[in-house]
């Protein structure tokens, strides 16, 4: 499963372009485990290049509200990405965040009427709904185009990396301390396997509130 958030199928020319890159691009196969060695899903991994990353236009991402949940729970975007919050529920929502990376509030809305929010600073953004205290979601903003999110098996892949030096990082919403960072050097056509470790809090951070 591709870690890119865009669900829509790419236009043909994009596909061709990607294919031309792929011929000389590296990729990293990553598994994320917790301190007990268990593989964990929804861990965000990203590769921060030592060199400047090429500027490419951002595609809009979206975090749906469905069945009074944020879906997906964890979304990774590159800085400068606009994120829409389409409401698939029959009731309105008022999505907000007090996180330092992006405090915002979308007044009560329904459907897709809400304007997209631009996430221009890296970091963790905790999403909540002001009228549904149970709703909890995360947007993690990274300052690199190369990022991925682990699947249920705790594995993911970052592809199309140009050769060079990177710092490989991990974040999990339940982490008890900043995740492991690892420096890697990629050759152009190499596929690297990396294992990253993150310590999780013993208990869910929102225990007991309901």
């Amino acid at each position, binding site marked *: 499963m591709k870690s890119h958030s865009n669900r829509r199928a790419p236009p043909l020319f994009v596909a061709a372009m990607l294919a031309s890159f792929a011929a000389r691009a590296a990729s990293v196969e990553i598994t994320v485990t917790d301190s007990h060695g268990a593989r964990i899903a929804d861990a965000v991994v990203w590769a921060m290049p030592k060199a400047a990353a090429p500027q490419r236009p951002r595609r809009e991402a979206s975090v749906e509200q469905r069945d009074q949940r944020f879906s997906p729970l964890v979304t990774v975007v590159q800085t400068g990405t606009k994120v829409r919050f389409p409401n698939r529920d029959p009731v309105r929502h008022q999505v907000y965040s007090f996180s330092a990376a992006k405090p915002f509030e979308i007044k009560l809305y329904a459907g897709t009427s809400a304007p997209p929010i631009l996430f221009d600073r890296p970091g963790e953004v*905790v999403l909540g709904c002001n009228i549904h*205290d149970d709703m909890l979601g995360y947007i993690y903003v990274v300052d690199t185009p190369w990022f991925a999110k682990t699947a249920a098996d705790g594995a993911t892949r970052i592809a199309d990396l140009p050769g060079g030096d990177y710092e490989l990082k991990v974040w999990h919403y339940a982490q008890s301390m900043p995740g492991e960072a690892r420096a890697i050097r990629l050759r152009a056509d190499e596929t690297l396997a990396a294992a990253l470790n993150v310590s999780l809090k013993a208990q869910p951070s*929102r225990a*007991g509130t309901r």
Partner: protein
Amino acid sequence: MTGRQIRPTRLQDRLVGFFVVLLMTVQLVSFLFIRYAIDHTAQNTMREELRVGSRVLKRILDQNNQELALATSVLTYDFGFRESIATRDRATILSTLGNHAARVKASGMAVIGLDGVVVADTLQDGATGKPYPFPNLVERAGQLGRASGVRVIGAKPYQIVVVPVLAPLPIAWVSMSFVIDDATARDLQRVATSDVSFVQVSGGEARILATTLGTLRRAQLAAAAGEVIATARDGATTRLGGDDYEVLATPLEDTGQVPIYAIVQRSTADGLTAYFLLEVILLIIAGLSLAVTLAGAIRIAGRITRPVTQLGAAAQEIERGNYAVRVGGESSDEIGELGRVFDRMAAGLAERDNMRDVLGKVASNEVVARLLEGGDIELGGEERDVTVMFTDIRNFTAIVERLTPDQSLQLLNEFLTVVSELIDAHGGVVDKYLGDGVMALFGAPVTREDDAQRALNCALEIRRRVEALGPVLAQRDLPHPQIGIGINTSRVIAGNIGSPSRLNYTVLGDGVNLASRLEGLTKRYHVGIVVGHATREKVRGIVWRELDKVRVRGKTVPERIFEPLAREGELAPEQAAHLARWHEALEMFRHRRWELAAAGFRELAPVPGYERITFLYLGYVRDLEANAPGEGWDAAFTLYEK
């Protein structure tokens, strides 16, 4: 009857006293039991009330806690509040806290950063930037979503609630404080219905944090609080300022380092008020039942004793001789039966008395008494010395010949009544009435020493009374009554004589006949009383005149007969001289000195009382001079017939 005077307590009083004392004892015992039970119950009830009050109090505090926690949670979800916290602008946050604390009437509100440092505090401005003083509350809030406890800040206890500010993950902690002061205690007092105090104990020293008590009691409790807390975990009675209190001390939960106790207390006197009313009611009931019992006991005792009193009175009546008294016996009980028995007894007594009365009329009282008391009436007799007296009115026929039969009988009865009464008075017994005469016994059926003396005294008295009757009869133009009395003492046979169905108690014997003869001789000598020699020998103090010697036919020994003239010393000297002359002449006569004797008789012939006897003796002398008597002449006069 004397028993009554000796013992003044009446039966009725004793019965009433017994019932009253019994009831009072029962009541006293019941009252003491009830009193004990009440005291016991009252104390238990009060303790239980205190326990309930204490539980209610804790429950209310707990509920308050939850409500406060809830309210605080709700407040912290307020978007504006969260927004304000997110600003990290201290002035804004402080202002928001003041505003929100006022919404739930909290005493104070503080925001603590996730790092445990106070961001803003409305209660203590100086706390900002310092670690929150109750980190365990924050820690617990982190684990459980909220935490609460009682903490002392300054000198005041506060109920503190700590909750996270969720956005939606915790971005800070909010602590909300609610002071526990006297007003809080008064609020609790209304539900716990007891005085409520919150006491802090630190270093063995108790301090009243909040209370419903007044200044004075507050000081008293403060002094005793240490002991109360130590002893009254499950309730105790303690003395505060001279009054008893039921107290109960309960430690409050989660008070941090310093234990805080809630002490509930009630005045024992207040708790007993309701029971005091009960006691008063019990006393009234006891008094009423005592009064009813008293009345009932008097009534019942009266019912029992009234017939007894009546019986006593009736018995007194019977003692006085009133046999007609009846008590009746209407009731079917023992007392009624007693009354009926008493009435039958009275009837029996009356019958017996009546019989005695009737018998007394037909026979002498003494004879009747002897007959009635002697039990069996037997035929047969006994020999005894008896003085027999016969009386007769010499000239009764002459007296009554001018009277109607009724008048005659009336006069006779007058005589007989007087004579009978005198006989009775002298202890004699009327044996029978013989026409106008009476036969009387002295010495039968009862023998006495002085039978003869009494008989003679009786005769003298009869003679005097009959002589006194003379003038009375003379006024009715009737002749002077002549009484004749013969008395003789002899050994006779006394007993019941007759047939078994009809008996006479009487005496038999020659002596009896002689007495009758002597009575007859009064006519011959014209004297009132003729006494036989045997009687004369037994009588003292009488001056006698010897009348004659008489020989009863069939007897060889002649009997000297005498007339009592007067009591000794009552005889005039002249009369004494005449008597002496008489006896001298009589002596001459008996020695056949006819001349000398006749001279004496003639000398005395005109003297009153001597006319007849001298006439008789002068006649004897003439006869004897004409026919000189033989050798055996003994100067006795032979009685051939009556």
